[in-house]
């Protein structure tokens, strides 16, 4: 039965159900319980934004707090994954990948290939991405394209509570390293989520909204921005088809191409900075594979090529919004040679 819960609760429920089902699943990260060695409450935080709250008492010995040592504990999660555990490590902010990237891209990502297919590394690295909380340049980036670039990693960017739960359960059961990117401004977003356990397969895009005029591919939180734009555009007679890839690696190329073959027009909305991001990747795919179907140049709505600014006045301009998406859609819809 579905009820309305938050993105945070959906993730928590997914972790709890998988920990219940499979005792090899462990959770680790900085303050994932919180209060280690302190005189007050145990499980004081449940992660810095509360996603793992309550798991510490429910699953004794399976929620591990860590020192602030990302290379060591992310690497430990990866090592443990090769030896029978299914760790879910929390790399608090995606920006902190800089501290521990070697363990992810030179170690975890490459084991299977460079060991001739003999390794399995079923690790999930949960991490918060995205702008909007005035968290400034080192706590706000949308770095999922960097992980998407690395062969051997799977990259998940859930756009709603429903997606968050099903994709998290899938991620834990998947036997490859998964980078699970949670938008930090979405934790309180609510939506209908089945109470029972379920999975959403990787590489299967969700057609969020049907439309024949323009295809909009949107990533993560940008899906809701695209939906807002689509509602406005519908009133002026433009029907947008919104595609949420749900995983950027693997990428459901087929669903995107089929849609563009129908609409002939593409806008990609990506919160990442504009060079070598998902917008350029998907645009290149469509330009190569569906060139004959295109009836207008592709538009990309992205952040500017800058670090994330602190001031609200600048950050609000930085993040792609519904107006920019609507303008891009109108531009491709109205384009004539």
């Amino acid at each position: 039965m579905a009820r309305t819960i938050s993105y945070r609760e959906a993730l928590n429920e997914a972790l709890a159900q998988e920990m219940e089902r499979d005792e090899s699943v462990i959770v680790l990260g900085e303050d994932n319980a919180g209060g280690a060695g302190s005189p007050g409450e145990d499980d004081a935080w449940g992660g810095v934004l509360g996603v793992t709250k309550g798991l510490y008492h429910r699953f004794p010995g399976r929620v591990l707090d860590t020192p602030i040592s990302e290379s060591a504990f992310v690497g430990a999660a990866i090592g443990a994954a090769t030896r029978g555990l299914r760790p879910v490590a929390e790399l608090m902010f995606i920006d902190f990948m800089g501290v521990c990237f070697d363990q992810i891209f030179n170690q975890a990502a490459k084991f299977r290939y460079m060991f001739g297919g003999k390794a399995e590394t079923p690790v999930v690295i949960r991490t918060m991405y995205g702008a909007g909380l005035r968290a400034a340049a080192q706590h706000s980036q949308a770095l999922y394209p960097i992980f998407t670039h690395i062969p051997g990693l799977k990259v998940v960017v859930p756009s709603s509570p429903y997606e968050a739960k099903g994709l998290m359960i899938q991620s834990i059961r998947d036997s490859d390293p998964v980078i699970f990117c949670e938008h930090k401004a979405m934790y309180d977003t609510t939506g209908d989520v089945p109470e029972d356990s379920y999975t959403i397969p990787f590489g299967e895009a969700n057609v969020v909204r049907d439309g024949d005029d323009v295809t909009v591919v949107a990533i993560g939180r940008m899906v809701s921005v695209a939906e807002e734009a689509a509602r406005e555009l519908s009133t002026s007679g433009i029907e947008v088809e919104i595609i949420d890839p749900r995983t950027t690696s693997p990428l459901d190329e087929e669903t995107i191409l089929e849609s563009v073959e129908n609409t002939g027009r593409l806008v990609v909305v990506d919160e990442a900075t504009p060079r070598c991001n998902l917008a350029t990747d998907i645009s290149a795919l469509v330009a190569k594979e569906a060139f004959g179907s295109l009836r207008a140049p592709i538009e990309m709505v992205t952040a500017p090529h800058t670090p994330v600014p602190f001031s609200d006045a600048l950050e609000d301009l930085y993040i792609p919004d519904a107006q920019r998406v609507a303008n891009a859609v109108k531009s491709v819809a109205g384009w004539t040679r």
Partner: protein
Amino acid sequence: MTDTLSTAVSHELDENALLEAYRTMRTIRAFEERLHDEFATGEIPGFVHLYAGEEASATGVCAHLDGRDSIASTHRGHGHCIAKGVDVKAMMAEIYGKKTGSCHGKGGSMHIADLSKGMLGANGIVGGGPPLICGTALAAKQRGTGGVGVAFFGDGASNQGTTLESLNLASVWNLPAIFVAENNGYAEATSSSWSVAADNIADRAAGFGMPGVIVDGFDFFAVHEAAGEAVQRAREGGGPTLIEVKFTRYFGHFEGDQQTYRAKEVAEARAKLDCLKRFRARVTETGQVDAARLDAIDTQVADLIDAAVEEAKAAPKPTAADLETDVYVSY
């Protein structure tokens, strides 16, 4: 070998130096307490991590530094900025996200910097500073400026590879660097008594071939003396030092942290352990400074903070034209 300095004397400080030290500590305290209040009104955006209670560390160390020297700071960086001479009004404006801020509103609380003052920035990355300070110390050494680099970092960062690598590199290169581990008892919600697998952070110095010193962080004079020795050794080519400053974080990890993990301990710490109260008691009891002069500083500082907040609130925000500037020197 780790030494403990708890009853330090400080012979070289004249009245002016004492007044300046007090002014710096009082400015930091007033700045942070005001931010604590203003944050609660909801007007301050983003994450704010306050340095209140730790003033003796930044002040005692930076009292030995001059224009040749550079520091790197942490996410809890306001105190280091003030102690290194960053303009208080520009700092406040930065925290409010205004164009008149130290970084024109682009950085915010976690990234306040002023390179002209040798302040390389507060830092959003735990352990981000120590490697940079190896670099500033290397530059000072290569260029023969006589300058030193000081990396302030917390007990949390003491467990980062970047910090441990930097300690080693500084010794290997015999750099004029000082590593100041500010152990305020907590990395976020985790006690340093749990996360640091040694009795003291300073004990790790032995493994990196440098002196390690522990000081009482509520005692300005203890910090001042230990830092003085370390800075002098660095300037004279004697290499790096690790100083562990022990104290207690007054406020939560960030503003809004309910601190259910610490409970009563906080109030006790604030009542009994206060570097400003101890400083005032000591310098007035010894007759080095007249209490009225300290009172006058309190008033001046309160006026400065009032003005800083007022001006910050009234200042303009950056505009669309500012969004894409400053990314490169040239492109």
